């Protein structure tokens, strides 16, 4: 990895290379296009630059974690710029204001927001460039602009047969004023958007040459590992600092809030030093805590007074007067992220600068926290985002950055903090568990008239984003059920038309750190909602698809994905003997999905085999269809892990799960055939990265019921759970 690029160098680099540079400044009021002369007074905010060698360099501020954002953003710019793709190079941008996502005001890669947040601003930025290049050519030739056309990094004047390349035009174009509202291309003019473009990061990754956080090397780099508390809140009573320092290669031992850090010249020396510490810890804040304790505590909390989140009509009255009443309790346990690349960060802190190399999903947070930990102003903190060996929401929380910066500052060396897999699982910010109690009422015609939903969950917001915590409501925990005004358009809320709806929340006080886990709580909450909807359909004596459509009369996008998936999966048609189908739908991050799972259950050993999953997605316009399908496939497989296998185990007030031998993930032979159908749509663009997750788990649970007649209201559906349920039935 090359030395970091400071903001100034980045800026100078952009300008020194000379050419047309268009930046987008994000203001609270929207986007303002800037030209090169204005950039001087702003932070580096160039989205792309064209140089006289007729090349286009595109800078992407989002993190590449396999979702294809480097390619997607570049496609959007190249499309409107009418750039020749073979002349485009794509670079990872630094932490800088122009890369802040307009839908949340921070630079981050989460909430399936990279394309839905930047689609319009990047199109405008590209289109402005095209307009300026055309204008420059027209002025050069002294012909009307509308006689000139931009084609593949050139401007052509058909009447006279003249052509100038973008490279030839760029220096002159840079002097023009940037148009505020440049004309955008029409869909039929699209050259790249909507077509499957090979991802720019793939060749490097296949060659083994992509640099992830763990691969960063620096001169005099030292390694640090941290002895961490075995239980939540445990403090060190004693440790053998001298013993650790005597290990050959160990540089220093420093106590930090997270534990005791051993810094050494090599990783093996650091690990050996950590072993030599022989730390004795106290018992922590809740030494009795284990899985049973957690579930009991959260279930008991359902009986306590709760905070009202949604209260439409009169759910209590409607349910008490209903022709049919259905009630159920559901529980979703904690699950871990287990990114393939364990947490790590490299930092170099000197008196006047702080450089950070981090596989992170939160550049703004990384820069802020590194500034705080280093004691240097933000302008002196340079954030280099490496490739991420999975993101999955874990890297939204830059705790590993704080560790690296703190240790580097304390030991006076560039330091790479390394987490082992065991630490990565034990000190994760898990997907929050949820305990649910639902009551609902149907009228005499089997129509859904009332729904009362209680949810107990530990907070996610207090660990990751306190902004999402308001008046006792953790909005991350509500996603899938309800959303607050600010992000109402994301549609992270129950889609069914329920005249009397009550949703209540109570934050569990368990000391377990939680964070966003692909789709955040849309995943677990969709499992509960969509399982319960199937229970209601049965109570109403209706087909689950029919019942859903009846309760989604005015929700055209939900109806279309349901109808599509039903048609493509053969819903209602005969299926191989021993197999059963289940259906579910969910909307979040501005996209609608529905899925059908086909499974069979081995009643002798309790194993569930998922044979086929059919998915339909309506995300509005499509940028790059192949990675879109890959994201849905990946989300489905990750979600199947939570449906069938994944659950974090706790013991003695801490985490018992440690590695892939005890925390089991999906393997090749367990993966079904997956079909993804993109519903053609002209609606507002929505997210994709997390959209595979929510619907498949309830689809499997519903298929399980259809196969066995037994409803299991707790995931994962492991063979033991299945056998117990079948025996009880």
């Amino acid at each position, binding site marked *: 990895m090359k030395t970091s690029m400071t903001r100034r160098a980045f800026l100078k680099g952009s300008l020194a290379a000379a050419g047309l540079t268009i930046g987008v400044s994000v203001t609270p009021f929207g986007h303002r296009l800037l030209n090169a002369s204005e950039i001087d007074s702003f932070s580096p905010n160039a989205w792309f630059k064209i140089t006289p060698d007729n090349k286009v360099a595109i800078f992407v501020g989002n993190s590449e974690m396999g979702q294809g954002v480097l390619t997607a953003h570049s496609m959007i710019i190249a499309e409107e710029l009418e750039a020749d793709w073979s002349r485009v190079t794509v670079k990872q941008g630094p932490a800088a204001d122009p890369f802040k996502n307009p839908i949340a005001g921070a630079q981050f890669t989460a909430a399936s927001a990279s394309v839905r947040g930047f689609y319009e601003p990047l199109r405008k930025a590209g289109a402005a460039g095209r307009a300026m290049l055309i204008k420059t050519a027209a002025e050069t030739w002294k012909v009307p602009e509308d006689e000139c056309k931009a084609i593949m990094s050139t401007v052509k004047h058909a009447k006279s047969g003249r052509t100038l390349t973008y490279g030839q035009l760029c220096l002159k174009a840079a002097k023009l004023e940037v148009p505020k509202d440049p004309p955008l291309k029409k869909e039929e003019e699209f050259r790249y958007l909507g077509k499957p473009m*090979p991802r720019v990061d793939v060749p490097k990754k296949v060659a083994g040459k992509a640099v992830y956080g763990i691969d960063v*090397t620096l001169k005099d780099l030292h390694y640090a590992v941290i002895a961490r508390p075995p239980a939540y809140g445990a403090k060190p009573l004693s440790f053998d600092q001298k013993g650790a320092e005597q290990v050959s290669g160990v540089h220093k031992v420093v106590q930090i809030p997270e534990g005791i850090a051993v810094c050494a010249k090599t990783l093996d020396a650091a690990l050996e030093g950590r072993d030599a510490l022989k730390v004795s810890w106290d018992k922590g804040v809740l030494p009795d805590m284990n899985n049973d304790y957690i579930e009991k505590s959260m279930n008991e909390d359902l009986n306590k007074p709760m905070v009202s989140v949604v209260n439409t009509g009169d759910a209590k009255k409607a349910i008490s007067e209903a022709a049919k009443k259905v009630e159920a309790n559901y529980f979703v346990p904690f699950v871990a992220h287990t*990114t*393939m*690349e364990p947490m790590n960060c490299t930092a170099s802190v000197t008196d006047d600068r702080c450089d950070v190399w981090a596989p992170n999903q939160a550049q703004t947070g990384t820069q802020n926290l590194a500034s705080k930990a280093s004691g240097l102003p933000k302008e002196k903190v340079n954030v280099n985002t490496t490739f991420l060996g999975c993101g999955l929401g874990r890297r939204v929380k830059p705790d590993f950055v704080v560790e690296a910066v703190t240790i580097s500052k304390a030991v006076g060396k560039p330091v790479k903090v390394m987490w082992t897999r065991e630490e990565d699982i034990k000190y994760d910010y898990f997907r929050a568990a949820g305990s649910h109690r639902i009551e609902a009422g149907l009228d005499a015609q089997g129509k859904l008239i009332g729904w009362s939903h209680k949810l107990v969950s530990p907070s996610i917001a207090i660990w990751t984003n306190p902004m999402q915590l308001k008046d006792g409501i953790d909005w991350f925990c509500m996603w899938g059920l309800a959303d607050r005004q600010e992000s109402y358009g994301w549609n992270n809320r129950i889609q069914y038309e329920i005249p009397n709806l009550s949703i209540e929340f109570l934050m569990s006080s368990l000391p377990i750190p939680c964070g966003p886990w692909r789709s955040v709580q849309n995943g677990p909450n969709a499992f509960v909602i969509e399982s319960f909807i199937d229970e209601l359909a049965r109570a109403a004596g209706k087909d689950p698809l029919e019942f859903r459509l009846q309760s989604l009369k005015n929700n055209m996008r939900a109806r279309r994905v349901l109808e599509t998936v039903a048609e493509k999966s053969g819903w209602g048609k005969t299926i191989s003997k021993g197999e059963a189908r289940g259906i579910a739908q969910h909307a979040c991050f501005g996209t609608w999905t529905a899925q059908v799972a086909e499974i069979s259950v081995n009643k002798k050993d309790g194993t569930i085999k998922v044979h086929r999953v059919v998915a339909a997605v309506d995300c509005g316009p499509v940028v790059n269809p192949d990675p879109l399908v890959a994201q849905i496939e990946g989300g489905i497989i990750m979600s199947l892990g939570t449906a069938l296998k994944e659950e974090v185990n706790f013991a003695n007030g801490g985490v018992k799960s440690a590695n892939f031998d005890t925390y089991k993930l999906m393997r090749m032979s367990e*993966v079904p055939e997956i079909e993804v159908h993109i519903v053609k749509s002209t609606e507002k663009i929505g997210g994709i990265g997390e959209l595979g997750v929510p619907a498949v788990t309830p689809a499997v649970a519903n298929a399980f019921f259809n196969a066995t007649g037994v409803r299991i209201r707790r995931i994962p559906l492991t063979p033991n759970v299945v056998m117990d349920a079948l025996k009880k039935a």
Partner: protein
Amino acid sequence: MPWRIHYSSAYAVGFFIGDRHSAAGKSHENSQGKEETMISLHVNGKVYQVDVSKDTPLLWVLRDYLNLKGTKYSCGIGECGSCTVHIDGKAVRSCTISVGEVQRKKITTIEGLPENHPVKKAWIKEQVVQCGYCQPGVIMQVSALLSQKPALNADQIIAKMDDVICRCGTYPRIKKGIKTAIQMTKKEVTKS
């Protein structure tokens, strides 16, 4: 091909073996006396001598001493396959095998697998990778299985892939990639 000999006392000069080319031969005489304690490794057609304890996992020597960062650490207990390399042509987890066990054996890492190898080409064609972190290991495992004699068919190779983990869930693409790699291998054989 002629072996290039590189000598370095890794602990003495820094955290990895350093500039492989400038170090070549230079410290040959200096390290003569240490020869016996050095671990000799044949990696990607070159011979390296590294001053580490015999029980050091191969993975860390590849990454931090030889600066071959393509081989990845993920679990450290042989459960996920991200660290897979070839030892004498067979797929082996480098996190659970010590350098002492692989001295004088032929080690190939992702960097040593030719760019035009059918598996690498198939992986690009099918756009298999997402985050890509596990893929060097996956590619090394598939390429080892692909070269097995008698030849395995796609289903047989796929059946032997249950010991690798891809958290991104690229499994459907890995299956496609395997099928494409087999076709590409067949074409190459026909051509030659």
